[in-house]
């Protein structure tokens, strides 16, 4: 399955999907040392975002979240790529500084299609982006271009 998207920060990444239908506050909501979501009552409370393809609608909360994204990368517990419904400045500048590929505006309802554990490849190039989804398996079947 291929889903077209919009490139915000260029790059390529692949890995296991982690899906949150709720917004994420990186500052306060994610532990910069471990990558574990610690917001009380968040559907992903206790789950690590490290090395995942992290899919969530948009950021919320503190504008310091950008520095948390940077710290996650420094501590090797950042997501490999981020997919948003609509990215906002806090997430974007964090991903630029941390070199994390970022795409938004997926052409299909990504929350209907992608489930936790699906294998995802994100290709974000200057003029095009896509999200390639392989249900619960590995990357071999996925093409390497959009």
């Amino acid at each position, binding site marked *: 399955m291929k889903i077209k998207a*919009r*490139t*915000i*920060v*260029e*790059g*390529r*990444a*692949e890995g296991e999907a982690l899906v949150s239908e709720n*917004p994420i*506050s990186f*500052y*306060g*909501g994610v532990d*910069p040392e471990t990558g574990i979501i*610690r*917001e*009380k*009552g968040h559907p992903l409370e206790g789950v690590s975002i490290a090395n995942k393809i992290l899919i969530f*609608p*948009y*950021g*919320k*909360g*503190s*504008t*310091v*979240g*950008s*520095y*948390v994204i*940077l*710290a*996650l*990368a*420094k501590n*090797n517990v*950042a*997501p*490999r790529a981020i997919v948003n419904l*609509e*990215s*906002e*400045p*806090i*997430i*974007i*500048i*964090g991903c*630029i*500084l*941390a*070199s*994390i*590929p970022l795409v938004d505006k997926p052409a299909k309802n990504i929350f209907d299609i992608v489930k936790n554990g699906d294998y995802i*490849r994100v290709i974000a190039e*200057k003029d095009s982006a896509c999200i390639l989804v392989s249900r619960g398996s590995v*990357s071999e079947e996925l093409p*390497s271009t959009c």
Partner: protein
Amino acid sequence: MFFVQRPGYRASDISQSRFYDNVFLTKIEEKMLNGEMGEAVQLAARIVVKIGDALGAERLVPIEDAHISGISFKNIGESGLDFLKMLIEKEAKFAVPTTINPAGFDLKKWGKMNVDKKFLDKQREVIDRLIKIGAKPLLSCTPYEAKRLSYGQHIAWSESNAVLYANSIIGARTNREGGPLAIFEAIIGRAPYTGLHLDENRLPEVLVRFPKDGKALSPALLGYTLGFIVKKGVPYIEDFIFRKMSEIKLFLAAVGASSSIGLVLLEDVSPDLKRFWKRIKKTELEKIEITEDEIEDSRSKISKNLTKVDAFFLGCPHLSARELKEIYNFLHNKKVKERLILFTARRVIEEHTNIVNRLESKGIEVYADTCMVVSDIGRMGVRRLALDSAKAAYYLTAQGYEVVLLDREEILKIASGG
């Protein structure tokens, strides 16, 4: 072979990253981008233009003011310090008046806050570096009380409560800039002309009503619930009952913590409502009624039923001079029996030493330059606390503290043994 990049901070990557050409640039902006105005300006221009391009901005907009969040070393850590070092090496300078958020401790009374020596040095380095780039060390999250802003001015502020105040109360225009983005925007004096800088994005999308007996409810809790339910966009609040600035600050700060909302249109308060009233068709807006259950649900996320606390905290956002006076007026003929800790701006302390001295003579602790969220209150002997700010309640709960959210008046009554 599918090439995959590893996330990680590499300043060289940013400098080499491609820039985009869908954004219309003036001659001077092109010079910035070409490197004719120095390396730091070039880097900042590349990033601001890149983000503008990604968000569909047609051009950049000159900004008149900037405010930067992410000052406490506790929040930005070594990677934040490295980032500032890189900017100084590139000889970065802010092009517009730029103030900064609270730091990790009171610059004068840090001894009383039991600050760790290593933290002390690191924090001072953060502040020194920002001053070197040209920041004014306001060290407060309420720049709207220190700076004169006017309706329609374009600014670049991070610090979510200040963004909401600037947009919703003053009618100045800023997006919710991430901390480092506000730095880049301040360096080139420009921001992408997108989001809340544009008229059409300042119109409401939903009409929100609170329960009728909402007067008994705390403004902080209503704001927190609003953000949690509405999540994004521009909500229009009908029958907004809070008129005191202290209540409005608590309300907006809470919205900022629980959502990505940067502008709330408050009936009879927000200046944009006057300007846009002809374009707002209330009956056509989606309606959201916030229920008592939803308010109780959001309370349960940030507040516990504590019978005993180590301290009571006020000052998120920083207390204004007027709020300090109100607190003093409430307490002046009472004995303060509990540990009460207040946070305000340095400027307020300097201009109102009289009130601060009188508060302190009652055993109340008054700190500037910092707050309960970005300092280390654990080192001040606090595990369980009461406060009136849903924003601080959210972040301190996440930091592992036990928190009870009360109204300011309740806090003052309990602290004075009433």
